Each structure stands twice: as structure tokens, then as C-alpha cells.
């Protein structure tokens, strides 16, 4: 009825409402009341406003207009132009209308608006595109420790990764990645001697230098990779900074009783050794690991598995090769088996190296490590932990010892010897190179320990129930 009273209904609706009002007494009475009230209201007299307020308002308005006049209308010619017809669209009032007029008049409005929209879209796209490209969710330095409750199953992270087939370019000394086919393997043996001949340092200066000359590849662990890179850089005469020298004293304290500690790699090598490059995470090994650098890493492979021909080996290198004799070959064979996932065969080869290493025992630690790994991969954790224990107790300065600790801890965990596992992980966590991995494994171990306790409690309860039943039966009797 209000709409009808104030004529806000269209004709059809108004007619319908009137028809209803004529037929409905109650609505008719209501309509009468509203009509009367409307009649009264429409007779409300309007007062005239005061006149004195206008002067003050206009004074302020003129001041404001004077401030705006020069900026709003800089072109006197435009001011003199005929005033355009008043715009009916209220949305064009204000700065937008002024800007549009400035662009070029009413005819340009749609086109200019479209052009500006296109520019905005392109600009926004160009603005965000580098951001999207730069954004790499994996590019984070955060170390995320998994919540213990989220852990299920064995520690998959301890599964040894496929050994990296890294080779060093003999010319640049840089690591070259890529797949090497089977046909390249025999060439490695030949090129070893050839590239050894290219080494700037003569073999006599460093014991086991043949293995030093081996390519910087086949790094089983990040620590090994880093060490191999350092040796490659050394061959190129680069200045290498000794990493983390100040860790020597602290690292010594971290080792368990009975473990050997390097006598100081820097001192043992003498002044001939240049400083090492800036340490990466993999290079922040304690001193005992650095000392192991002098003992060449036998796990590295031949350097230049490249397509380029290699010069024939020199006589000293040939003698060196002969001194390692079958041990080196068996070691390589073991590595081939390992990479081919023939873990039992690999274990046999590595065990042979360990038992009969020959005059040069530098291969033993690595062989022992790979023996343990092969046994672990083959599912024989009991034998694997024996190898790990031998490695850690007899070769504490071995550079892969921190990784071996974590791997051994995994075996102990699988065997249910959780306390042993925890002991090893806690030791490994004190090594900066593997601390993050060790912490993650400790988290997983905590889950296993909780489950073990729960199982133990359940078992104890199950055992107690029959005993109680028997006691109750005895009481009844």
C-alpha cells in the first residue's frame, strides 16, 4: 500500500492493489488511515533556511575553487571552449571525466579505456611472471623435521641412493654428470693411468696417490663428493681452504671412547697441501674426516670417462696399479655389482677386498662400508651391523663414518635394538654434515620406540589376563 500511496507501482500492480482494496474491508480501512496520514504529512510546512550561513559557505567554496582552478584547468584555450552538454552519466563525474577529457575528448573514451585495460593486464603479467619463475617451493633453507606422528614404515631416507656417476673433466677438473654406458667401463681402467699421468702432483708426494687421481665421481655420500671435488681442484692448482679447522678440538670430544681420531690432517699433510675452498655443508667435516683425505678415497671412480682418448699410463702409475693388484679390481667389480643392485655379489667382492687388501690398505674402510651397505640392501641387517661396527671401531677417521653411523642405526632399528640405534644417531647428530639427517632419523626412531613400548605393554597385559583368570578360578575353588 505504501508503494501505491507514493506511486511506486507500475500500472498493472496499482490496478490490482486498488481492486483488492475495494474488496477487502480490513485493507480498505488500513488504506484510509495511511491516506490520511499521508495527507497530513504532505501538509508539513517547510521553513526557510537562514541566509547568513551562505556567506560563510561561499567564502570557503571560493577559496577551495581558487586552489583547484589552476590545476584543474591549465589550458586557457580549453576554458574558453564551448561548454559541452551536461553529462547524464553520474559515474563520469570527478577526476576520471577530467582525465578522459584531457586524453582527447569524448570520442576517445572507449578506446582509451580499452587501451589502459590492456596495458594494465600486460603490466601485471610481466610483473608477476618473474616472481612465479623465481618462486621455487624447494628453494628453502628451512630444515623441516617430520612430526613423529607422521612417520610410518622404515626410514626410507636411509636407502642408499643410486651412486652418482660423476666424472671429472681432466681439462677443467670440474665434475661432469651424465650416463656412462657399459662400453665405457673398460675404458676407465685404461684412462685411470692416462689421467693419472696428467696429474700435476707426482704420485710419490702423497700415499695412494693413484686413488687421489681417480675421478671426482662415485661419491657415495655428500661428504665424499666434497672431498673428491677438493682433490680435483687441488690437481688444478686451485687454492683450497681447509674447512672448519677450528672444529678439530671440538670434533675430538664428539667421538666415542675407543674411536680413533685423526692426528690432524693439516699437519700430517705438511705444507704441501694448499688451503681448501670455502666449505659447503658437505665439507664441514671434522678434522678426523679431513685427515682421511690423505688416505685416498677408493670409492671414487676413474676420472675421465669422456669420449676423448686418454694417453697411455706412465710407468709409475703402472707400478702403482700393480701394487693394489686384484683388490682394486675386486673393489671396482663390487661397485659394479652394487650399482646393478646385485648386493650379494657386491658383498662378496667387498668382503674379499677387506680380507685380502694387499699392500695398500687404503681400500679397506671404503670396502668395509660398502660391504655393510650391500648386506643391508640384501636384507641381512645382522651381518650388516657387524660390518658397520668393524668400520666404526677400526676406522674411526674414515670420512664416511657419520653416514655409516646413520645407516647402522637404521639396521639396529630394524633389528629392534632401538637403544643402539639411538646411541649411533645421537653421535651422528653431532656431526654438522649429517646432523639434519640424524635428527630426522631420531624423530622416526622416537615413533618406533613408542610403538615398541605400546606393544610391550599390550603383551604384558595379555600375559597378565590369563594369570588373573587363573587366580580368580583358584579363589573360587
Amino acid at each position: 500500500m505504501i508503494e501505491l500511496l507514493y506511486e511506486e507501482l507500475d500500472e498493472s500492480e496499482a490496478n490490482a492493489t486498488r481492486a483488492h482494496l475495494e474488496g477487502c474491508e480490513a485493507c480498505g480501512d488500513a488504506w484510509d488511515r495511511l491516506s490520511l496520514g499521508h495527507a497530513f504529512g504532505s501538509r508539513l510546512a517547510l521553513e526557510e533556511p537562514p541566509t547568513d550561513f551562505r556567506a560563510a559557505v561561499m567564502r570557503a567554496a571560493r577559496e577551495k575553487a581558487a586552489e583547484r582552478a589552476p590545476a584543474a584547468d591549465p589550458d586557457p584555450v580549453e576554458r574558453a571552449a564551448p561548454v559541452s552538454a551536461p553529462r547524464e552519466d553520474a559515474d563520469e563525474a570527478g577526476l576520471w571525466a577530467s582525465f578522459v577529457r584531457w586524453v582527447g575528448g569524448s570520442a576517445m573514451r572507449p578506446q582509451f579505456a580499452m587501451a589502459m585495460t590492456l596495458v594494465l593486464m600486460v603490466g601485471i603479467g610481466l610483473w608477476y611472471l618473474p616472481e612465479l619463475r623465481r618462486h621455487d617451493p624447494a628453494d628453502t633453507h628451512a630444515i623441516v623435521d617430520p612430526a613423529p606422528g607422521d612417520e610410518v614404515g622404515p626410514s626410507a631416507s636411509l636407502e642408499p641412493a643410486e651412486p652418482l656417476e660423476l666424472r671429472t673433466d681432466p681439462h677443467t677438473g670440474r665434475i661432469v654428470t651424465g650416463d656412462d654406458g657399459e662400453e665405457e667401463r673398460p675404458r676407465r681402467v685404461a684412462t685411470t693411468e692416462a689421467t693419472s699421468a696428467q696429474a700435476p702432483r707426482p704420485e710419490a708426494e702423497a700415499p695412494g696417490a693413484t686413488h687421489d687421481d681417480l675421478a671426482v665421481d662415485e661419491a657415495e655420500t655428500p661428504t665424499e663428493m666434497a672431498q673428491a671435488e677438493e682433490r680435483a681442484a687441488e690437481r688444478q692448482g686451485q687454492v683450497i681452504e681447509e674447512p672448519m679447522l677450528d672444529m678439530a678440538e671440538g670434533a675430538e670430544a664428539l667421538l666415542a671412547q675407543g674411536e680413533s681420531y685423526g692426528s690432524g690432517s693439516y699437519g700430517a699433510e705438511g705444507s704441501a697441501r694448499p688451503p681448501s675452498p670455502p666449505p659447503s655443508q658437505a665439507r664441514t667435516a671434522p678434522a678426523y674426516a679431513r685427515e682421511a683425505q690423505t688416505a685416498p678415497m677408493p670409492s671414487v671412480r676413474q676420472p675421465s670417462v669422456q669420449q676423448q682418448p686418454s694417453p697411455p699410463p706412465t710407468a709409475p702409475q703402472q707400478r702403482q696399479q700393480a701394487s693394489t693388484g686384484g683388490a682394486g679390481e675386486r673393489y671396482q667389480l663390487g661397485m659394479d655389482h652394487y650399482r646393478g643392485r646385485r648386493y650379494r655379489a657386491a658383498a662378496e667382492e667387498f668382503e674379499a677386498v677387506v680380507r685380502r687388501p694387499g699392500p695398500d690398505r687404503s681400500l679397506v674402510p671404503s670396502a668395509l662400508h660398502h660391504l655393510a651397505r650391500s648386506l643391508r640392501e640384501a636384507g641381512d641387517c645382522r651381518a650388516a651391523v657387524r660390518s658397520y661396527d668393524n668400520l666404526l671401531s677400526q676406522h674411526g677417521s674414515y670420512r664416511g663414518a657419520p653416514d655409516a653411523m646413520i645407516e647402522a642405526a637404521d639396521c639396529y632399528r630394524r633389528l629392534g635394538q632401538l637403544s643402539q640405534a639411538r646411541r649411533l644417531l645421537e653421535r651422528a647428530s653431532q656431526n654438522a654434515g649429517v646432523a639434519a639427517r640424524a635428527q630426522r632419523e631420531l624423530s622416526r626412531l622416537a615413533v618406533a620406540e613408542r610403538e615398541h613400548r605400546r606393544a610391550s605393554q599390550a603383551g604384558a597385559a595379555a600375559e597378565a589376563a590369563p594369570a588373573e583368570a587363573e587366580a580368580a578360578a583358584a579363589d573360587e575353588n
Partner: protein
Amino acid sequence: MMEDPDDLSDEELLRRFNEGDADAFERLVRRYERPLYNFILRSVRRRERADELLQDVFMKVVQRSRDFKGNSKLSTWLYTIARNLCIDHSRKMVFRRHKSLDAPSRSGDDEGPTLLERQAAGGPEADRAAIAKDLQARIAEAVEELPEEQREVFLLRQVEGMAFKEIASVVGVPENTVKSRMRYALERLQRALDEYKDYVRELK
């Protein structure tokens, strides 16, 4: 051909003022001063205060004219400013009931003769004039006695002729609520002025 400034829309006048045309603003003032003043006057019910608030409304428009984006009608914007000022005023002041501004002054009597008494006392012409004058006063008084939310709706419709949809924008409630308030206001006026119904019907 020179345009007639009176044909310019409110928004166009404000736009010109934003560009430095003070005369355009004066036209706006002249266009809205009377309805705005009555809206404010019936809301605050004190003439002196209404004078001040009217000036305040236009001063605000001067200072913030560029804040008007044209998303609504200018009248909506103006009455929103006026309403807000009236609300601020009512919060500051303790409401005091006082006589209507147009209440007839009676010497010695607080209440004048009733409509029946006047009808009986004088002739028809004099009677009608008195009744008319009295009615106006009574209407003003009845409007001022409306609840605030009904009064503002009634005034916006009656004084400015604002559509219910626009009133809803000013007061910030749904349109149906505005219509309901309007209905209640009219019913109140009818009850308050029921004795004058015959007179009003005769006028119709």
C-alpha cells in the same frame, strides 16, 4: 547557445566546482538549502542548532567534494552527511522534550482551544484560517514526536521526495524496512491528527 545552469545535474555542478567553478557550488547550495534545512530542523528540533548544522553540512561538502565518486546520487550523499551530523548532535545533547517550533503562543493558557471550541467560537472563514495554522503546528509537532528512525524516513520522503530505494541507501537499511517505517510513521501521524481528518478531507 549558452546552457541554462539550472538544467545541469547535481553531479555536473559538483564536478565543475571541483574544477574551480565556485558559482556551480552556489547553485548546489541554493538547490538544497531549503530541503536540507527542514530535514535538519525536524531532526534536531532546535532552530539555532539547525542553522549551525546546515552550515556544517555545506562546509563538509566544500572540503570533501572530491570524495564524491559518483557511485550514488548527490542527494544521497548530501543527506547522508546531514543525517550523520544530526546523529552526532543527538548523541552529544541530552534529549529534551520541548514545544514545537510552530506551537501557537497563547497568553495565559498552556493549551489553546480545541478544534471544536474554535469551530464553535468563530465564523467559517476565520475558523478555517485558524484551523489551518493550528494544523500546521500540530503536524510539525507530530512529526517531531515520531521515533527517530520513522521521522528521518518520513522527512526524506516528504521533504526531498527521495525514493524509498535511495532512502535505504541513506539510512543504511533494506528498502522494505524503509517502507515499513514509513507506514508506521503515517499511521502515527494519522492517530495524532485524527481530529483534523474532516478538515483535511474537505481540503482534498
